[in-house]
């Protein structure tokens, strides 16, 4: 039982962070906060992947004569790509927020959809 918990608690905490991120994204009306939530959600997924690659007693995957056990490079490579995709999405999101602010003079989703309804 204890072993099961020790082996899994890392993943459970990551799941909890994902949930907080998604909740921030869905429950908040402020567009910037939504993007922060989105970013947290993505980061938690990235953390999950990198955890998959960890090997106990292993070392950084740079070949050297001193070590024989290395962590898995593949999840790390995938996540480098995912981080870049994440920042690209966030940047585009912020650009949209600036334009929305100029067009609606608000960054609150409630107010904006109320304005859209009126038209």
């Amino acid at each position, binding site marked *: 039982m204890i072993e099961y918990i020790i082996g899994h608690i890392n993943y459970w905490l990551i799941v909890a962070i994902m949930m907080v991120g998604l909740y921030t994204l869905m429950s908040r009306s402020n567009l910037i906060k939504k993007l922060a939530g989105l970013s947290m959600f993505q980061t938690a997924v990235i953390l999950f992947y990198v955890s998959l690659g960890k090997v106990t007693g292993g070392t950084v995957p740079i070949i050297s004569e001193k070590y024989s056990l290395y962590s898995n490079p593949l999840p790390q490579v995938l996540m480098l790509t995912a981080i870049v995709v994440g920042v690209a999405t966030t940047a585009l999101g912020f650009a949209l927020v600036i334009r929305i602010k100029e067009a609606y003079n608000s960054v609150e989703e*409630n107010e904006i959809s109320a304005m859209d309804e009126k038209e």
Partner: protein
Amino acid sequence: MSLVVNLVLLVFLLVMALAVLKTRHLFAMAMLFGLYSLLVAGLFVVLDAPDVAFTEAAVGTGISTVLMLVTLASIKDGHELISTQKSRTAPLIICVLMGGLLIYGTHDIAELGDAQSAPHMQVAARYIEKGQEETGVPNLVTAVLASYRGFDTLGEVTVVLTAGIGVLMLLGSRKKLRIKEVSNGK
């Protein structure tokens, strides 16, 4: 030992995420968000992923946070309104469902650090075994990134270019257009 460090950092991270959720002051949120990224970068170091940590520190703490601050500066609005209309039950239910499903899924996942688990035994084994020999690069992350999965990286660079083009399309014109007026005036 590293597991303890890992757990402590994860708990900090959770607290930071909750703080981002709770704070109403958006500039404070930007700072907390930067801290969140920094903690994640720290976690990556503990997980033996210095390349990812490097990137996260530079991107999450650097670029993302700076862009968030610049956005906040340009919209000149540092506070989140207390919204009353937006229902919070539905998001909560969805998040709990998602969390439950994920925990159900991770039931039979290999324990953290298990060297015998599938991700280490299959494809990755060959990268570690032959990576340096085949590419001449000792940093396996670079080897896989640039050669074995070089096409992914080409896609990644294209994503960066796409983001640049997208932002230029949105914010590139020097004068601030009032979109509404343009559509009416035509």
